[in-house]
């Protein structure tokens, strides 16, 4: 049995490990970034923390509960609910990630919002995420989330490239951040192509591998940057 067949045969078990791995990476990132936020009260750090919190919740819900449904520990009728929650958290995570790069241009540094999860600006993201999830549900498709994320990561790639071009000599991780955004864009394109081609496994496996690389890159960046004394 070749490696590819082995992966396909054990895909549900692998998905659990995949969800747990990304959930664990997100948990470490959230804890480390939250420590920095509590010290600095820096809004950009706050939004980055929120992004990984939402990514972690999304992956745990999708791959752990998805597997529980597959092994019939949970009724299959809840699959659509899990898919809706997964998409919602994934879209919100993307919005928070993009907003962590943009917030300086859109709000004052003296932000008095008590919560970064429930305030007027973030409500717009919640509404946009709801609309995207609703459209996908009504049309029984995934293309609205794919299109939204391809647009989002194209913008994020552009911003992170500008950041890299400005500070590449001083700040080494800007290069990896830009690379992570390009890989995230590629992962979403692979996801969309996979869906277009009746969930083509080649594109799907590649998007999973890209996701692991992206989250490991961020983990490396966070650990490296917070280790400095």
């Amino acid at each position, binding site marked *: 049995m070749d490696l590819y067949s082995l992966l396909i045969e054990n895909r549900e078990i692998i998905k659990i490990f995949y969800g747990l791995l990304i959930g664990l990476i997100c948990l470490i990132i959230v804890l480390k970034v939250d420590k*920095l936020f509590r*010290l*600095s*009260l*820096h809004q*950009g*750090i706050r*939004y*980055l923390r929120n992004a990984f919190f939402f990514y972690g919740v999304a992956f745990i819900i999708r791959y752990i509960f998805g597997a529980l449904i597959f092994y019939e520990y949970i009724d299959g009728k809840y699959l659509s609910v899990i898919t809706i929650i997964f998409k919602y958290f994934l879209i919100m995570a993307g919005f928070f990630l993009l907003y*962590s*790069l943009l*917030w*300086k241009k859109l709000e004052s*540094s*003296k932000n*008095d919002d008590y919560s970064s999860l429930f305030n007027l600006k973030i409500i717009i993201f919640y509404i946009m995420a709801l609309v995207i999830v609703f459209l996908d549900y009504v049309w029984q498709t995934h293309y609205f989330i794919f299109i939204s994320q391809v647009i989002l990561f194209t913008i994020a790639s552009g*911003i*992170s490239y500008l*950041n890299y071009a400005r*500070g590449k000599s*001083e*700040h*080494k*991780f*800007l290069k990896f*951040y830009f690379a992570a955004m390009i890989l995230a864009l590629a992962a979403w394109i692979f996801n969309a192509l996979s869906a277009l081609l009746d969930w083509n496994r080649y594109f799907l496996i590649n998007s999973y591998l890209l996701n692991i690389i992206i989250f490991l890159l961020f983990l490396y*960046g*966070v650990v490296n*940057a*917070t280790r*400095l*004394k």
Partner: protein
Amino acid sequence: MSKKRERLEVIRDILKVIQNNRRIKPTRLLYASNLSPQMFKEYVNELLGKKFVQSEEDGNGKKIFSLTKKGNEFLQEYKVIENFVENFGL
């Protein structure tokens, strides 16, 4: 140099002045911080709000500033925060 780094640097500079003096009057802090009175007021209000700095009254009833535990921690970790913000383009 980004606007955000400048802001973090201003905060660090104000906190360092307070730390070096242990307790300092607003007028002396304004002079040492090299800010306009309006900007100074904004930063001090922010630092008070974030509980990096506390305001007390001396024996003559005059206002004086001192650093809180949180303010001291911020100064210790400043390099880490600055490095993180710049490496992630925040």
